[in-house]
């Protein structure tokens, strides 16, 4: 093995205190980026979770809808217009809207209601951990997520509360259906949902279109576009993209997360650059000696870059461990940090890039070395 790696390792570990400071800098930076990006991924999933779990080939949405939680209403005539279009097998109504959840102890909290026909394919609660979909047909039945029990003052199945002065009972419990806005989602039937959000039976927020067997989605969409008056037609992918774009970038939430991640990267880069620079300065005689005995510039750059890479690998290993603990600790919270294999790979590449970039200042310093200085020191 070339002595380049050995030299880099010895240079790095020679001053243990500085090495620890470097690793802490990298770990701090990468954990910060991990949390920010993990939250970003989490939010990204949350803002499209309803669209992801809805059974629909096309969505009919009020014109100008920005995201799933945009509670405008469509008239039922739009549904009939859709049903008249060739290739449309069904157009299932879904109603959404904000309401007040009044707890038995007198407190109240806002909720986000989703009312859908539980007997047909459409938008049903998923990941049930208690009760059943069928149990939602019971009078006043609702489904809530267990991560919001505390917010809702609920103990789970069988617990009761009030929405719009009507008694409701938890007959189904889900796990992991969280809202980007942190307002708890509450599922119920279509009729009850309309009543809870205070709209009339001939209104709905969305119509979920199911295509007839063999129908061409693009052709059906064109026909729907030509037929509908106050609505637009979106594929699930388009609706996802629109929701994502609104919540993550339209509101600035995504930008804030990215800004946090960017800050982490900058802090990490500066810390690593500073330590590599001062390490190089401390070993300037050795680099000058290497140059004097004829080493190429590339050889010396390799020593510095190896130092940076070694710092990156050690720092990333520790940061990944801490990141994994954070992921586990937040898994059941309202704001889970998500770590995907792609994110892990991306963070490793980022750590390496950050450390190599940090080496530039040290390399520039070494480039200026006059090998003749070895005669005067």
């Amino acid at each position, binding site marked *: 093995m070339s002595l380049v790696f050995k030299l880099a390792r010895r240079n790095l570990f020679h001053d243990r205190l500085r090495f620890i400071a470097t690793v802490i800098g990298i770990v701090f930076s990468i954990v910060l980026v991990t949390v920010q990006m993990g939250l970003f991924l989490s939010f990204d999933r949350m803002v499209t979770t309803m669209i992801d779990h809805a059974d629909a080939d096309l969505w009919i949405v009020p014109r100008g809808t920005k995201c799933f939680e945009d509670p405008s209403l469509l008239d039922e005539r739009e549904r009939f217009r859709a049903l008249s279009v060739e290739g449309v097998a069904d157009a299932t109504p879904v109603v959404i809207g904000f309401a007040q959840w009044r707890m038995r102890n007198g407190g109240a909290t806002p909720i986000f209601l989703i009312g859908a026909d539980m007997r047909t394919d459409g938008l049903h609660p998923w990941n049930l951990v208690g009760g059943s979909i069928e149990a939602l047909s019971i009078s006043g039945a609702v489904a809530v997520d267990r991560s919001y029990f505390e917010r809702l003052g609920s103990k789970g199945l069988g617990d009761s509360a009030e929405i719009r002065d009507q008694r409701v009972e938890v007959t189904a419990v889900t796990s992991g259906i969280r809202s980007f806005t942190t307002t708890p989602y509450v599922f119920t039937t279509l009729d009850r949902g309309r009543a809870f959000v205070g709209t009339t039976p001939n209104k709905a927020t969305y119509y979920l279109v199911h295509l007839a067997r063999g129908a061409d989605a693009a052709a059906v969409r064109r026909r729907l576009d030509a037929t509908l008056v106050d609505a637009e037609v979106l594929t699930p992918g388009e609706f996802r993209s629109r929701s994502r774009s609104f919540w993550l970038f339209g509101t600035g939430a995504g930008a804030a997360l990215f800004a946090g991640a960017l800050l982490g990267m900058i802090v990490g880069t500066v810390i690593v650059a500073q330590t590599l620079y001062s390490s190089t300065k401390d070993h300037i005689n050795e680099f000058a000696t290497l140059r004097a005995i*004829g080493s190429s510039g590339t050889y010396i750059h390799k020593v510095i870059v190896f130092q940076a890479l070694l710092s990156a690998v050690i720092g990333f290993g520790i940061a990944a461990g801490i990141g994994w603990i954070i992921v586990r600790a937040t898994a059941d919270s309202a704001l889970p940090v998500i770590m995907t294999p792609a994110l892990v790979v991306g963070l490793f590449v980022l750590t390496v890039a950050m450390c190599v970039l940090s080496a530039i200042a040290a390399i520039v310093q070494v480039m200026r070395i006059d*090998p003749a200085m070895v005669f005067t020191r």
Partner: protein
Amino acid sequence: MTEAILDAVDVVKFLGSGAGRVEALKGVSLAVTGGELTLLMGPSGSGKTTLLSILGCMLTPSRGMVRVAGRSTAGAGPEDLAKLRREHIGFVFQSYHLFPTMSALDNVRLALDVRGEGTRASRAKAKEAMATVGLAHKVKAYPSELSGGEQQRVAIARAIVANPSSVLADEPTAALDGANGQIVMKVLAQIAANPARGVLVVAHDPRIIPFANRIIHIEDGRIVGMEPGGAGLNSK
């Protein structure tokens, strides 16, 4: 006498700029030939180190010509000069400049590593060089575990391990006591006995004179005298 393997012809070197600009070398011509140890002597500020830096391809002359193994350094860039150094010149420095975090063997191997030589071959050559300087038993020692004389001998092993045609030594005994200085000079004289290699030593120390085949005196940037130092034959 063999042909010159390192020579300077009418070398002029200006250092600094503006009002601080000085002419450190004023037309120096010098040849280092194989099989001899040349001693360059002169007072502080006479231009010894500047001349050594130019002959060692670390500085380029402002005027004049330097040839290393017959090749002119005119127009060579920093990487070309580094290549000339690693292929043709070995260096011994006053303060050794060993790497404190590496063993003696690895310090010697560095001169081969920068040439891209493989581990197995470089280990064997480095051990051979350590044996040449009488330190075969110290290959695993770190510089801090060696005496000043031993450190300088490791530095000499590093200078010769790649079999350069020239070895340039800057005050190699200045930091050593008399006994260690003698040992180091004997090793350098032994190295200079190879007809394919020339050794140039810059020194103040008159105790070195007996080891030199030739003594060159430099003052105020000019060669002012040359004399034989025949006692160097004692070491052969």
